[in-house]
């Protein structure tokens, strides 16, 4: 067994650091974009007019579908599709698009749940005062719903950091692929993957604690 002292050269550390940051960036950008899209989808799904029914159905089908496809399959699909269309996307972009697609599906459900958690009588009061659907969302419903939406959204982001590991399979240079590189260089695999597990832990655990803290703060503040 190689001595632990032989461990990581500064180049290796840099590689791990770069992978760490790429993992974080992938998850963050993907989830933020996914949240923006998912939130808009939830707003659209909150409408009740018959003209919007096909759009609502399409969005519902989308949310259903993309929460039931493994991330690896989505990655491969986007990868091969972009190749077939000669889109010339970087592997990072392919991974980002895949994350967006999935995040949008999950986060639109979370946002939808948040909007629906606002009591019906708030809608009724607004209607009696002649608010339009969008005015009601803007002034009454969303200000009350965001408290319910933020904690699970943050939780999803923290959870997804772990899923980004699969992006290594299409060649994105994130944290897990750094492991492959270091392993090929001859470093002991147990050490390499053990270190990478620790790095994921150091990224995920504090954020998940932050998420719990956030949840308590928002719940305590009530409706303000």
């Amino acid at each position, binding site marked *: 067994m190689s001595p632990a002292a032989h461990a990581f050269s500064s180049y290796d550390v840099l590689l791990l650091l770069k992978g760490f940051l790429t993992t974080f960036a992938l998850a963050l950008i993907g989830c933020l974009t996914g949240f923006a899209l998912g939130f808009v989808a939830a707003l659209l799904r909150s409408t009740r007019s018959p003209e919007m029914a096909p759009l609502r159905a399409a969005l519902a089908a989308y949310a259903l579908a993309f929460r039931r496809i493994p991330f690896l399959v989505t990655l491969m699909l986007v990868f091969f599709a972009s190749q077939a269309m000669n889109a010339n996307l970087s592997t990072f972009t392919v991974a980002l698009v895949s994350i967006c697609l999935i995040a949008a599906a999950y986060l639109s459900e979370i946002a939808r749940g948040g909007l629906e958690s606002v009591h019906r009588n708030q809608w009724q009061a607004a209607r009696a005062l002649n608010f339009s659907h969008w005015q009601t969302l803007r002034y009454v419903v969303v200000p009350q719903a965001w408290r319910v939406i933020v904690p699970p959204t943050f939780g999803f982001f923290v959870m997804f950091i772990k899923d980004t590991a699969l992006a290594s399979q299409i060649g994105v240079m994130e944290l897990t692929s750094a492991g492959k590189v270091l392993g090929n260089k001859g470093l002991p695999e147990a050490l390499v993957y*053990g270190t990478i597990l620790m790095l*994921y*832990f150091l990224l995920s655990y504090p954020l998940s604690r932050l998420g719990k803290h956030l949840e308590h703060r928002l719940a305590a503040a009530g409706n303000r």
Partner: protein
Amino acid sequence: MTLQFGPILEQWPYLLGGAWLSLQIAVLAFACGMLIGLLCASILQYGPSSMRRIVGAYVTFATNTPQLVQIFFLFYGLPEVGVTLSPFTAVLMGATFNAGAYLCEIQRSGFASVKHAELESAAVLGFSRMQIIRHVTFPHVMKVMFPPLSNQFIVMTLGTSMASIFGVEELTGRIDNLGAETYLSVEAFLVAAVLYIAITLLATWLLTLYGRSVCRARMDIL
């Protein structure tokens, strides 16, 4: 861009075999994970503080690290201490390690949800210890746990797709092979997507039926 699904779809027995393997992995990992989870949840609820710390560390660690890297560690790391695992075994062990932690959390909340008042009233009515467990604790805990357990099972079924990375020929692996052979990877993975959606919808439906009728649980998973 025209899509040709023919060559992919005509291999449906091959793909179905892959789906069956995926389910096997999911079910095995879930079953073993449930046992580990039950043990850990019991320790967390009733065990001495030293054991609680160890179990707590395991749960925190396993739920904050990716399953893929856990399997990498087992598959590439263990040979260095002389233990070589087949891809299937490594995947199963990794999935079980991961599942055990999540299932422990679910079972722990399940146990914690039983209210003292219920147990007291049962005891006062003359129920024996075994009877209390059978008629009060168990149904209640099953009712509370069934939705998150079902959800976890669906998540694990989707998670089996990473077994393909290690060469295990489950659904994703077979789709990948087929796509490479026929040069129709886009069509192949579209079919994979549809199959996973179908499998998980079917599983959700069956679990919801069982959950509502037998456990009388409020099922609104996925």
